[in-house]
Structures are given as structure tokens and as C-alpha cells.
């Protein structure tokens, strides 16, 4: 294939770029976003105030809970919350029993083996006093789901 053909291809891609969005492109291998739209979004909450709080009766609150609720509303999803320890929730996320896990996760957390971490939505000072970027864990490789959430974060102005 000639160089010129490639340049034409690049130009074509640049024109096509903005035309495609989730859930059609990128598409989820497991179709999670399509299932959640007008259906159920399974979210795990690990307590980490003020990002996430779990009351004695199991009801959840906090900044990240509000973010997820806002996003779920925007895609017409009903959120099914479940709380637990971070490591347990991450294991369940890896197994595909959850779609999202929140709990004030840092962008440099080691959970990249279990989950896809979103782009950072805020920056806070971590326990060591150094700045740390906050992210949300998404079911690995569900790129439409992840892109939809990230698009929501950007549209809400949630950027560090």
C-alpha cells in the first residue's frame, strides 16, 4: 500500500472521528452500557468519607455516589447499590458481578489488574500529603460504559 493511500486514510479518519459515539462505537464486549440504559446499573460502594459513606441501614451517600446517581439518571439507569470492602468489591468487579466500584480510589491504585480506572475527576491531598487523583473503577474492557461515564464527568466539569 502506498504512502498516499495512508495519508488519505488518515484524513478520512479525522473526518469520521466525531461521528461515532457509544453505545455503538466503542461497543462493550459484554454489552453492559446497553443493558444498563433503561435497566439496572450495579455499583459497589466501599466506604471512604467524604467520597463515599455507607449508613447503618445500608443507604449510601457522598460525592461519588452523587456523581454516579447523576450519570445513571442521564442514561436512564436504575442503580443497584451494594456495599463492602474495597478488595471484595474489586474481586466481584473482576468477576463481572458489578459494573462500577467507587470509594475514593486513587489513579495510582494497584487495581488496574481488576478494573479499568477512569480518567481522574478531581485532585485531593492523599494521606501522605501528596496530591492524589481520584478515579472510578469500571468493569474491565467495557469501553462504551467507561467512555459514557468519562464523557459525563467531562460534561459536568469534573476534571482535576
Amino acid at each position: 500500500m502506498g504512502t498516499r493511500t495512508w495519508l488519505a486514510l488518515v484524513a478520512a479518519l479525522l473526518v469520521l472521528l466525531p461521528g461515532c459515539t457509544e453505545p455503538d462505537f466503542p461497543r462493550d464486549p459484554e454489552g453492559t452500557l446497553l443493558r444498563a440504559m433503561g435497566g439496572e446499573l450495579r455499583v459497589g460502594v466501599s466506604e471512604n468519607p467524604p467520597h463515599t459513606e455507607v449508613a447503618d441501614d445500608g443507604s449510601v451517600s457522598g460525592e461519588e455516589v452523587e456523581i454516579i446517581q447523576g450519570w445513571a439518571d442521564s442514561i436512564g439507569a436504575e442503580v443497584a447499590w451494594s456495599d463492602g470492602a474495597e478488595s471484595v468489591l474489586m474481586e466481584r468487579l473482576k468477576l463481572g458481578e458489578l459494573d462500577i466500584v467507587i470509594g475514593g480510589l486513587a489513579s495510582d491504585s494497584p487495581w488496574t489488574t481488576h478494573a479499568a480506572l477512569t480518567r481522574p475527576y478531581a485532585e485531593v491531598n492523599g494521606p501522605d500529603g501528596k496530591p492524589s487523583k481520584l478515579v472510578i473503577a469500571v468493569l474491565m474492557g467495557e469501553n462504551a460504559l467507561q467512555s459514557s461515564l468519562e464523557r459525563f464527568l467531562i460534561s459536568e466539569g469534573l476534571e482535576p
Partner: protein
Amino acid sequence: MSGHTTLPEHERELLHKAVRLQWVSLFVMALVVTSVGLVAGQSQAMRTAFAEDALALLPPIVFLVGVWRTGKSRDPDHPYGHHRAIGAGHLVAAVTLLVLGASLVWNGASGLVKGEHPPIGVFSFAGVTVWAGWLMIVVMAIVMVPPMILGRLKMKLARPLHDKVLSADADMNKADWTTGAATIAGVTGIGFGLWWADSVAAILVSLSILWDGWKNIREAVRDLLDARASEIDSAEPHPLVDKLRDEADRTDWVDRATVRVRDMGHVFHSEVMVVPRRGVDPTVDQVEELRRRCQELDWKTDDTVVVVMHHLPKELVPPDQSSTSGTNT
């Protein structure tokens, strides 16, 4: 000195061209590696791509070091000159290719076995938000162009220069742009929800890279073991091998002749062994005259010696000639 280590005018020009090409190559590939490193971010897969791209810097470096080394003339400490630097560089470039191919196969296969679903989110710049996969595709399509062009130019120079480092480097450039094409196909596949697309595409192109690496290693080792000189990408005898023997055979005082020619890198080191006709005792001038004719055959045969003997070493006579040499002894 007719130049035992320097090249003739035309070849020297080609070599200058190749050196310039390799500096451009180093600069462009460094730029590519840096830009891939910048978009790589935290992703392990992209970091691997970054490391693999960095491997492509090695062949141009060994080429430039090799050319610098071969530019030195021969001396009592280095009686064969420094041309073997090309052979050593060829081995380095060949191993680099094999490592690249092996790394691609390994990453692709382990991704498939573990069922890794590569995550790709969105990219936002100046108020525009697009899927980051698009960005990867565009970056790959752009960075594919330089190795495509450079590889072709290098291949064109490699044959007339008889430079196997250059040809291995051209293979490396081919590996670069085919991996880029595989990434484009893979990321597009991921966009369509096919999580395995990237791994499968990587494995497919890595097979041809592994083959190129293996082929080059075999050839480099052959040359380092002083196997009979051959053309680039071939195990057949180099045409000059036959031409040298013909030159000796055409001499009126020569009864039988055989040659051994080894590839020093760029140039050959050739020994022409001749048995004079019965009753003829060639003079030094006659031997020198034959040597000069052999040298003038080609710039690669500059370093040629003629040895006069009673019997040709049996192992060095090709089977098709052994019958005639047998009857005459």
C-alpha cells in the same frame, strides 16, 4: 594502495547516503518513540509498544557504529581490516528483530489466554471529547509512514552496498509499520466490542517478524562462521564465487582451481587456489597478474590472495569438479 578497506567512488556515495538515511532514521524514530511514550500513559500494553518501538533504534545505531569501524584501514593488528563490524552489527540487528517478534507473540498470547479485555476510555482536548481509540488509530497511522518510507529506501541501498545490517534494519522498519497496522486493526476491533482483536492482530504480524528475525540470525551466524559468501537473503553462492574461479580457470598456466570466499561485511576475503599445468612453474609476475585480474573483478574482491599448490584441498573442491581433478592427479 588500491584501498583494501575503502570503497570505490560510487559505493562510497551510496554509503554516505545510507549514513545520512540512518541519522534521519534515528531522529525520526526517536520522535516516534517519544510520541508513543506520551500517549502511552499508564496502560501496560502501550508501555510494551513503547519498549518495542525503542528496539527499532538499535539497528541504526549498530549500523553507524559499524560504518565508523569499517572506515578504519587494515594494519598488522587487524590484518583483515574492520569490515567484520558489519557482521557483528547484523547479528545484533537480527537478535533485535527476534526479540521484538517474541515479545509481540508473548504479549498477544498471554492477553488471549488470560482473556484480558483492554480498556480504552475517552480523550478530551480543547473542549472536544472523542474515544481515545481514535487518537491511537490516528497516531499509529501517522507514525507508520516514516518507517514505511525509510525501510524502502534502506532496502534499495542494502543490495548494491552488500550491507546486511542495512537490510536487517529495513526488515525492522517493516516490522514497525506492520505492527502499527496491526494496532490500527486491533483498536478498531476493540471499538466494535471484539476484545481479542488487538492480541490476534499482534500475533499475526509477529509471525512474519519472527521469521525475518530467524532468517537474519541464520544468515549472520553463517557469515560469522565464514560460510561461503552469499547474496543478501539467500544461501546460494554469491555470483562472484564462480567468477573468481572462472578467472583462474581461464589462465593458460592454470590446470585446476578452487576458491574460498568469506563475507567480511561489505567486502569479501577471497583465496584463489590454483594447480599449475604439468611442467609449468609460474613466475611471481604470472601469479601477481592473476591476482590483479581477480581483484579487478569487483570492488568486493579487493582483498584476494592467490595460492599456488600441487594438489587442491579435497574438501574444498565442489562435487561436480572432483571427478576431473581426480583423474589428473
